[in-house]
């Protein structure tokens, strides 16, 4: 009989499975289980009850007295498939009256699924292989990683942090480095840093994938080497501060890297850093940018790291811009649908979820939908185009760059 290995489930998670009150508060706002397809097993409550039932069948008191029961493979696969439909947005953590840290629970559940041969899904395998072979999820050669910076090398000097000492290390991230539609995010970020007179650099082609995609799909153990290698690079560069423009990289370096090793410098997201630069007068946002802007809180920045005020402060500092809030904002913000490997394995589901968010932005009366995450950006841009919406998709650094007077 195949016995589930529960030694990969975190002690806190095991306590939390018993602490779930089955109230269902999480089911109504779950973007995948409740809103997009109304399937109980995808909801937090559904997953908790099913997994608890499975391991109690094999480890509970009754199993100890009467013997453990076999769990049919198809039931296990069904749970695994449904568990991977979760974007790990953390909306359930926001609403859970029992204060369960569901973000930790889902990531840990995936580690458990991987340890038991139930994850990741076949659809994730290509990305995993790409990260293992190319150090990025987009099957792009390592030598092309810093190519994005070529087109601005005349205007902005991007230091190689491994060769020249620099105060600030900008961790670009795979999506901004390789995706032709997102490259502007990196370009805008370095232009903003340059405009503020920041002494900064990047790791160039030596920068590796942060490991976020693999960690979110439960492959935490496989990322250890990758994380260690990145930390070594950080140590070599020895910056005073590290900044990221990707919410996923930010969460991973800030919250997950310390589980593997010590990150040698404080890590902040660009929204935090720009807020500080504007506040200290180092960055002047003087140029008018006309438009009604609504800000989408990326899950990794908002619910996972509670950075809600910073992007709003930045938007409000830009002359001419009017900030309008969507009905669901801050910790109640809807997810973009791309996280947790959902966009890779379930693209239609991801599209459905992002469309709901685009509708939120339209209802708010915005002209511009701004965000600070390349995945959210990608998803919304596709949804805006698919819907024929009049909304303009912008990364927050693009707005900042326009107002700072560069471009």
């Amino acid at each position, binding site marked *: 009989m195949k016995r589930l290995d529960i030694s990969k489930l975190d002690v806190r*998670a095991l306590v939390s499975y018993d602490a779930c009150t089955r109230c269902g508060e999480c089911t109504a706002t779950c973007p995948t289980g409740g809103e997009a397809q109304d399937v109980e097993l995808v909801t937090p409550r559904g997953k908790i009850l099913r997994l608890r039932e499975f391991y109690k069948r094999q480890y509970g008191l009754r199993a100890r007295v009467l013997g453990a029961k076999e769990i049919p493979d198809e039931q296990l696969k069904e749970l695994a498939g449904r568990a991977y439909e979760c974007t790990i947005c953390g909306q359930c953590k926001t609403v859970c009256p029992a204060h369960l840290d569901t973000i930790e629970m889902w990531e840990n559940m995936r580690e458990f699924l991987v340890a038991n041969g139930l994850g990741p899904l076949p659809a994730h395998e290509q990305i995993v292989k790409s990260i293992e072979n190319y150090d990025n999820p987009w099957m792009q050669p390592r030598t092309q990683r810093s190519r994005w910076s070529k087109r601005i090398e005349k205007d902005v000097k991007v230091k190689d942090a491994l060769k020249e000492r620099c105060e600030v290390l900008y961790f670009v991230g795979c999506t901004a480095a390789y995706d032709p539609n997102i490259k502007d995010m990196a370009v805008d970020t370095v232009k903003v840093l340059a405009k503020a007179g920041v002494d900064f650099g990047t790791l160039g082609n030596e920068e590796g994938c942060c490991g976020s995609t693999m960690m979110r799909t439960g492959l935490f153990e496989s990322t250890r080497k990758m994380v260690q290698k990145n930390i070594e690079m950080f140590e070599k560069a020895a910056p005073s501060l590290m900044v990221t423009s990707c919410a996923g990289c930010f969460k991973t370096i800030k919250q997950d890297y310390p*589980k593997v090793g010590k990150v040698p410098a404080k890590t902040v997201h660009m929204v935090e850093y720009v807020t500080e630069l504007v506040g200290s007068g180092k960055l002047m946002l003087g140029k008018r940018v006309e438009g009604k802007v609504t800000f989408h809180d990326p899950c990794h920045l908002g619910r996972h790291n509670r950075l809600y005020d910073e992007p709003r402060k930045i938007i409000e500092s830009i002359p001419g811009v009017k900030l309008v809030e969507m009905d669901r904002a801050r910790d109640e913000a809807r997810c973009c649908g791309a996280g947790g490997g959902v966009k890779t394995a379930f693209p239609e589901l991801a599209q459905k979820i992002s469309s709901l968010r685009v509708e939120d932005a339209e209802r708010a009366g915005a002209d511009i939908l701004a965000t600070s995450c390349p995945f959210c950006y990608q998803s919304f841009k596709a949804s805006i185009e698919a819907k024929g919406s009049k909304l303009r998709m912008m990364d927050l650094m693009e707005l900042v760059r326009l107002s700072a007077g560069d471009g």
Partner: protein
Amino acid sequence: MTGGGYLKDRAWLYLPFFGALALLCAVILLLPYETVYVRDRAYLSAFLFSIVLCLAVFFIGTLYNMLLWMHGKGLIGTPERRLVRTLLRALRLVISRRFGRIFGTFAKDALYLSKLKDRSVSRWFMHLMILGGFVLMFALDLLVTFSLDFLKYGPMISEDGWAKLWLRDFGFDLVGLMMLVGLLIAAVRRFVLRPKIVRTELPDSVSILFLLAVVLGGFVLEGMGIAGSIPGHTENVEYSFVGYLFSLPMSEGAGDLYDQAWLVHGVMSALLIAYIPFSKLFHMIATPIAIELESAFPKEGAP
């Protein structure tokens, strides 16, 4: 792990655990219970036997659930050893300077249910009535038993004593009413209104109906005592204001079945306690622990 080490780990956990359980059971069995309302001591003995058995099931079930938690990653050693270490660590926290903060979190998040209040006042009220009633009932039970059987406190014993009137009669009825109100709202919500987020399966129905049966049974029992003028229910009966209302439609003959009803109520209450570790009601224990874990040991890098 060597066999000796394994046995040592188990001994460290099970010897104190079963020792404490045996001591508790002995205290329960040896108390005089001179002031209980049941007249036939055979019924009292039957109840005491059932409560001791059910308490043992409750504690063993709870211990087993906790041992299951200890199978998880993040700790070293056998589950028994991990549990002993975790309990000692928890004890150290309780007697540390951080206790105030820990208790504050417990009071705000686990008892007052602050987060639920922010999301839905009606559900918060419902849950607070059930949980508050349950906790206060337990506290009152301990207080009354201690006053009666250890202190022999006069005002708790005499028919017109202030403690008898305000704690044994009014107090129990008030907290029982709290539970009844909460449970009725929960039952109507779950079985009649059926909002989309509510999912009713057998364990949900059993838990709510079991609790309702115990609480309603308590008031029916009190009504029978008042209607039948059972000792302890003859004077100032209006202090037991809910039991008194229940007594109104009852005849004097209801008192004839008082002892049997007392045993049924007692055994059902005992069974409810035994059921907790094996039901959704276990969240009463697990949720405060989960809340305290998050509060006392935040994860590295957490915002």
